[in-house]
């Protein structure tokens, strides 16, 4: 279980507990959080689960795989250094608790 904060572009936020082994993307889908589309269902194909990780939250992230890096070139909102695909951020027993992500303006 991890507490994940999704910050919306309008400044509001949604904080939810997401059980392992879901991804940060699934956490958003489960809670019908607007702003994560995830059309490809988590197979690092679509880029519509793009998030900006809040670097001040201090949570260590898994390494970025090459596929994820490639997909991030084509996101609808600009890529930044903090950009990740939320479908590639998997919640395990101790990882990602306290993660804060900013949702981009648009996903497609």
């Amino acid at each position: 279980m991890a507490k994940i904060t999704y910050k919306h572009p309008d400044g509001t936020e949604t904080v939810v507990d997401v059980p392992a082994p879901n991804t940060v993307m699934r956490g958003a889908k489960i809670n019908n959080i607007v702003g994560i589309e995830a059309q490809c269902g988590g197979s690092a194909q679509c880029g519509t689960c793009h998030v900006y990780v809040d670097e001040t939250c201090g949570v260590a992230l898994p390494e970025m795989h090459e596929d994820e890096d490639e997909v991030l070139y084509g996101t609808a909102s600009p890529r930044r250094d903090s950009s990740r695909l939320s479908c590639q951020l998997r919640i395990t027993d101790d990882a990602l608790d306290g993660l804060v992500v900013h949702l981009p303006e648009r996903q497609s």
Partner: protein
Amino acid sequence: MAGRSVVIIGAGQAGSDTAAALRAQGFTGSITLVGDERHPPYQRPPLSKGYLTGATLREDLLLRPETFYPAQDIELLCGDEAVGLDREIRSVTLRSGRELRYDTLVLATGARPRRLPVPGADLPGVLTLRGADDSDTLRARLADGGRTLDLAVVGAGFIGLELAATARKLGHRVTVVEALPRALQRALSPEMSAHLSTEHQRRGVRLLLRREVTELLAGATGEVRALRLNDGELVPADLVVVGIGVLPNVDLAVGAGLAVGDGILVDEHLRTSDPDIHAIGDCARFPSPHAGRPVRLESVQNATDQARTVAAAVCGAGEPYTAVPWFWSEQYELRLQIAGLTAGHDQAVVAGDVEQGRFSVFCFREGRLTGVESLNRAADHGISRRLLAAGTDLTPEQVARPGFDLKHLARQAT
């Protein structure tokens, strides 16, 4: 909006996404989602890929957890079927006898596999792949005590080839029979389809093009044992999967007198000939600005983007549907992505490293970019989608120039 009722027929990708999008967009009326399958809405793409090998878990197949629907105040009726539609009184009748009154009806009934119109097509051991139950059956057969099977796939389309790839990975002997001169002829450029064919053959798939199945023959057990082809060849088969395309589910629409023609006909707002009824996803034929004509698209992108368009329409926003189509397929470690529509192009320019299997085919019609097929080049795909949405002026000459790199171009543009 409050007090209004939306009934959605078909609890697949499009139906489930419509229900979710309505709530996400603030709709407060009642939502009923009816699906004839006994499963809560799930994703189909893994059915021919990771779900068959066990890489995708059943929980991950679900589009949303079961608890989602009650939590969002969406009434989900699984295992029931809409059998009648009365537009006069705005009511849908279910097989269970229940009647559902609607203010807005959304038809998201999807499509069903075409049957092979030859003798023996209904023998045991002849399967199609559309739903989770089909995939479960197939998975059990492919696991069959670790036995190596002769699998025959009829049709070299996406589903056929994905299945061929998965079955090869599991060690089975695979023959694919295709009537057309090349694999994925309707969907892909000659360049990309040639490359994929070679990759399949290199991995041991026997690909028979320009050949037709004329009969399916039973063995001693009564199960299918072989395919007979039009040139007389007999192809051994312990199992046959037919993947020769789908037919849109239009029965309800036809019964109610809605305009239909290979799909339920809708306008740019995805409204059928009855303004209270929308049709979306695999079952709908809509005017596409990207195709320049009415088309029916079978993709997750189309289902989910159309769902949002309809939800917005119900909530009062009247935007026409113009999303850039895109599609993906996975075969072995090959990741194919298509942005836009490439059918009917008159010029194709290949960029990237074909030898290494990392390249994109840029397709143009009358000098305009209409679509891009990318193999293991996800950056090209994503950037192409943006370019197509923005109405790009990328030229064939630009793409053909040595050192052309879309990533570079995208960086310049931002």
